[in-house]
């Protein structure tokens, strides 16, 4: 057992919620059969949603373009399955009310699409970047930022390090863990593609110490690929680093600090300190785009919690409805209390199961009474625990009190705008105060534009 003091971590704050990863961490990734209908939301990425390129009743092939952005940063959307466009309308969205979508009814008689590998090394940097954009890849960690934009740093940025985020610090989540165990080679090749696009040599892969099997497979794969690269006459350094288990180790700013000691400046991007961070799932999607010419149409999602009959790591098509997944896994248990899309710390509770999987969905949690806390919140007693655990050095308690007093616009002094909503404060709060929600309200107040008459 490694000494935890020797493991890399960030210095300030953080919490240790129960990991609850044992429910799914040992279960291999399982292919979910294609459901009858998929609802593909057109606004998967940050920015302007795609315009649909198909019409109702038109036939589509797996991997065919069905949505394209007309302006802005976005990426295209592809048909995850072959079938018929059943509808172009609206779907429920995990945290927006409803949003435009394309519904595809799967056809039973279509041939499965075969993806044959090509040598990615034969392509130039620009060609590889085009492949990433054309495959519709966005940051799978949650924000949904178009990946090709992240891979196009301004000319004056001096990037020297790529970081792959394998921390997976949210409780319950094991999708990235399983990908690293079962598809380590693909992730490492994805990393090499990114290194080539960025024109750099160094990649650090941060993995929390609670995933020893993933650390082993990734280390092996990294060694093998480095050797292969050396044989081709390229020098790349791909190193797997073990991180201390501490939430939010996988937060971009904290991860960069843990691995490089560098600090992202306030409201700045990692680019400013020479770092690009990519998620494990994103790296694998880049591999599939570069080597297999396969668009980003499916995703490994952790289905967990004690409220689902059969927890699993499912490989599902983008657009699969949560209700279809529930049916496939044998339904929910009777004591189910809450369904959360994303991790328990940062995810959103949902009110319906008719929500389609997005490119950014990492998990669906079915939580029972014992796994959540529904006690009402009370006054802040100024214990200061939230201040202690805040990795950003903010004062969540003060932000909460100001918001309650209707003074959300005065919370800049406590750092409301620097909060990335990791939820550590709310997790430790003995008064059960919804501090993240208070911060969101404070941000809304602060970002309100003054009325121009």
């Amino acid at each position: 057992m490694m000494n935890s003091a020797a493991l890399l971590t960030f210095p300030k704050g953080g919490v240790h919620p129960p990991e609850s990863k044992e429910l799914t961490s040992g279960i291999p990734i399982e292919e979910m059969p294609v459901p009858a209908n998929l609802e593909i939301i057109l606004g998967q990425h940050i920015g302007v949603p795609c315009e649909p390129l198909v019409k109702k009743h038109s036939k589509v092939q797996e991997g065919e373009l069905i949505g394209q952005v007309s302006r802005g940063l976005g990426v295209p959307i592809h048909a995850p399955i072959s079938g018929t466009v059943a509808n172009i309308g609206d779907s429920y969205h995990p945290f927006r009310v409803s949003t435009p979508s394309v519904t595809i009814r799967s056809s039973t008689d279509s041939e499965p699409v075969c993806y044959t590998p090509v040598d990615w090394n034969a392509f130039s940097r620009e060609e590889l970047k085009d492949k990433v954009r054309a495959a519709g890849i966005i940051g799978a960690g949650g924000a949904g930022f178009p990946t090709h934009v992240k891979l196009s740093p301004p000319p004056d940025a001096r990037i020297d390090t790529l970081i792959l985020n394998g921390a997976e610090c949210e409780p319950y989540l094991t999708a990235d863990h399983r990908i690293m165990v079962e598809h380590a080679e693909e992730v490492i090749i994805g990393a090499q593609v990114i290194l080539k696009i960025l024109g750099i040599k160094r990649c650090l892969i941060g993995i929390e110490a609670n995933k020893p099997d993933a650390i082993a497979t990734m280390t092996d794969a990294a060694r093998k690929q480095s050797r292969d690269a050396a044989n081709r006459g390229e020098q790349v350094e791909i190193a797997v680093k073990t991180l201390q288990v501490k939430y939010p180790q996988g937060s971009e700013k904290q991860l960069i600090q843990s691995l490089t000691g560098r600090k992202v400046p306030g409201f700045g991007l990692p680019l400013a300190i020479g770092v690009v961070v990519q998620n494990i799932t994103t790296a694998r999607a880049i591999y599939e785009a570069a080597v297999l010419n396969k668009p980003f149409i499916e995703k490994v999602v952790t289905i967990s919690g004690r409220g689902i009959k059969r927890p699993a790591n499912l490989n599902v098509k983008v657009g699969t409805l949560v209700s279809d997944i529930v049916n496939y896994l044998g339904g929910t248990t009777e004591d189910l209390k809450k369904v959360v899309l994303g991790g328990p710390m940062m995810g959103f509770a949902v009110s319906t199961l008719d929500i389609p999987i997005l490119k950014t969905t990492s998990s669906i949690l079915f939580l029972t009474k014992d796994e959540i806390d529904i006690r009402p919140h009370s006054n802040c007693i100024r214990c200061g625990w939230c201040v202690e655990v805040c990795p950003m050095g903010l004062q969540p308690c003060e932000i909460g009190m100001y918001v309650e007093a209707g003074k959300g616009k005065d919370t800049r002094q406590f750092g409301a705008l620097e909060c990335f909503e990791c939820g550590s404060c709310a997790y430790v709060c003995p008064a059960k105060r919804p501090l993240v929600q208070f911060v969101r309200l404070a941000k809304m107040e602060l970002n309100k534009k003054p009325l121009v008459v």
Partner: protein
Amino acid sequence: MWTVAACLMPPLVLSVFIFGIQTLVITAACVISCVVVEAITQKCLKRQVTIYDGSAVITGLLIAYIIPPSAPLWLPPLGAIMGIYIGKHLLGGIGYNIFNPALLARAFLMATFPVAMTAAWMPPLSTMEIFSFYGETVDAVSAATPLYLLSHGGMAALIEEFGSPSSFYGRFFLGWRPGCIGETSTFLIMAGGLFLMYKKYITWHTPVAMLGTIALLTWIFGGDEKLFAGDPILAVLAGGAMLGAFFMATDYVTTPMGAKAKLVFGFGVGALTVLIRLKGGYPEGVAYAILLMNPMTPALEVWFRPQRFAPPLGSDQ
């Protein structure tokens, strides 16, 4: 909250053996008064009744611990009204009150009923007759607290009453001395406080800064004639220093959150305590020292903000 209450239990049990069973009766009266006053207040103010959160129980315990074991039973309800109704709820309710409610109650009782609060200190029982004083008039027995003797007769008077320092250090540490109900046992208060630190409910900053300052300043200025002749050990063993340091100056609501601010708060309380003890009209100053530092809390919070990860350029930090 209930952990804090549990940590306050051992000194109460010991007080029964030091002063007799009436300490239990007084403590029960304080706790019940505080809970009842809280319930009535919250009902009248149409706020949510929160008597089960343990906060009023702790206030009740603390009020009992800082009044004399001979106190008449009409003192607790008055203290509870001052502490809970005025000190806690009229000043904003839990989380918003400026002053420590229990100390406010004591300050009020001291100012309004000085005789009942100070005239008759009970000497510790010499045998285990814990029921012996019950029902007797308090005037029948009386003794002076160590700090009273020290401030009125100097070290000589103290030695005359309690023997040489080496013999009374041990007894004071265990709790066998005249004093308020729950303040005498340095040992048990410290044990409770250290347990709270172990559980991470409180941090070391305030108690260490406060007791250190009291010891240091007493050593320098506390001598009868010359500098550097005071007794620092006596200074932290006597009076309410221990109870104040571990259970009152660490109160969440009325003291600062950050480590640096806590240190400054502790220094302030320690310095004010010594100032009142040596130059003030009362032999003991912990209660007033904490009450005087309580309203400094918001200022300390502003002066000692936590270090931000990376504040935006051009911001106020």
